[in-house]
């Protein structure tokens, strides 16, 4: 009884929700939004992309998962840079009052800047890189936009370390490196992973914008190309793919995050 209720909660209700949205979508496309392809039409046009998801017929005519894979690879690189740069900055902010007072204002100013604003700067920065310029510019944009949640959460985590743990380190006379690896980092991990999860979400948001502007192959680039070729069904396919991938990434990260919460 309890178990069936559970299944109702996480299977039947969400499916019902999806059904409602599909219905509204059909109604809209049949009535006032004539340009909006109906769900059926979207499926028919996208079939080939979905059913042979890894096919490659041309630079901009590939299976949807192949495009997704390109995007994911780029996100992974940019995200890795964001974490590698953001975590140490977060530690410095949390550990040093002076560092925090010096750099916190500028961080607060840079943090809300949109990826659309960073990308041109990134492209200019790597102008000398020739063919690589668009990839490096995109990486720069992903890294700088996705970094902030990691920076801020790590800083909060370091500041929240209970004095007791630091006292243990002091009484044992742990060296600086040992204090860092045996006390500071483990104590901050739960906060760091919250930051990592939020950063991943932003990195995935940024990739689409970056690809649209640079025209790189990937879900975002494909979306923009299909808009220009007036194949609106594929735009919807791309939106759904982006959403599903983002959702899966978030779930994966929160599983990892939970593991560290209990620690």
């Amino acid at each position, binding site marked *: 009884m309890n178990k069936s209720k559970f299944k109702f909660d996480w299977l039947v209700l969400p499916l019902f929700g999806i059904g409602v949205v599909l219905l509204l979508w059909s109604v809209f496309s049949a009535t006032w939004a004539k340009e909006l392809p109906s769900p059926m039409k979207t499926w028919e046009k996208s079939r080939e992309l979905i059913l042979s998801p890894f096919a490659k017929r041309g630079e901009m005519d590939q299976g949807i998962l192949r495009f997704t894979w390109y995007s994911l690879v780029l996100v992974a690189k940019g995200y890795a840079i964001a974490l590698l740069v953001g975590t140490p900055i977060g530690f410095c902010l949390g550990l040093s009052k002076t560092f925090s007072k010096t750099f916190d204002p500028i961080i607060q100013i840079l943090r809300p800047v949109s990826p659309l604003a960073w990308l041109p700067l990134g492209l200019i920065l790597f102008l000398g890189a020739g063919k690589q310029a668009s990839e490096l510019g995109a990486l720069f944009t992903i890294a700088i936009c996705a970094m902030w949640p990691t920076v801020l959460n790590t800083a909060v985590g370091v500041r929240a370390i209970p004095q*007791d743990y630091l006292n*243990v380190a002091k009484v*044992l006379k742990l060296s600086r490196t040992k204090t860092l690896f045996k006390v500071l980092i483990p104590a901050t991990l739960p906060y760091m992973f919250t930051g990592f999860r939020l950063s991943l979400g932003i990195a995935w948001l940024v990739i689409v914008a970056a690809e649209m502007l640079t025209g790189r192959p990937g879900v975002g680039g494909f979306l923009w190309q299909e808009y220009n070729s007036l194949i609106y069904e594929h735009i919807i396919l791309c939106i759904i793919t982006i959403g599903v991938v983002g959702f899966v990434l978030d779930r994966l990260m929160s599983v990892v995050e939970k593991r560290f919460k*209990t620690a």
Partner: protein
Amino acid sequence: MPFLELKSIRKSFGENGSRTEVLRDINLSIEKGEFVAIVGYSGAGKTTLISLIAGLLAPDAGSLTLNDLEITAPGPDRGVVFQNYSLLPWLSVYENIYLAVDQVFPNWAPAKKQQHTEAHIAMVNLSPAHDKKPAELSGGMKQRVSVARALAMDPQILLLDEPLSALDALTRATLQDEIGRIWSQQKKTVVLITNDVDEGILLADRIIPLSAGPGATLGASINIDIPRPRDRKGINHDPRFKEIRRAVINYLLGAGGHRHTTVSKKLVLPDLEPEDLSVPPPMIGGRRTPIRRHEIKRETVEVE
């Protein structure tokens, strides 16, 4: 030549405007191998005093010496059992203790460190909980890990900050016996901070009352010349025990200023009484179940 000596220690907290003096004119000397208990009110400054000896805080005035050396920083020569256990929650029982052993005896072979760690886990009867994380332990077990960690550092002096005050009466009695046993085996110098006069008298060679804050100071030290081993049941009827107890309580009441009309004491009664059904449930919110006597954590008694 005393082993640990505190001379005219003063300590205040806060900024210039709202500065409160917590400890005033603290003088204390402890010989090697002595077991000294310090009793005082909650908030009097007991933890502050232990932190000063541990070197985690610096005094505003006065000097602290251990073995003739000025105490300037914390170090593993002073094993501290913190009031709130202070175990690292991401390490198992074994790893918490091993971290200390590894740090204090870096030159030992790994097998020896491991064996030393195991021996101390066994000493506090925690071998079955060897691989558990602190979150999986009861309060008493955490406390024992904390004691084992301090002892495994083989410190010159053991500083115990209310190690048992968070425990129920039965566990408390067991751990008191355990601390007594370990002390009689190792003959370490011990400073025990407690809020329970009976506990101090049961375990220590000397008991020193700390008056209520602000500006708490130590009273005269009282020798506990009751022969060991002391029997916890018999001791209640010992006239010398009663005399010491009265002297300590009188000091605490007399020097306590505003607090001198009440004694506040954590209850140590086991849960033998039925539920108190006469307590009416609160109108809105709060708990619905009746209050059991052992859940009343503190009782204040009027004295004349």
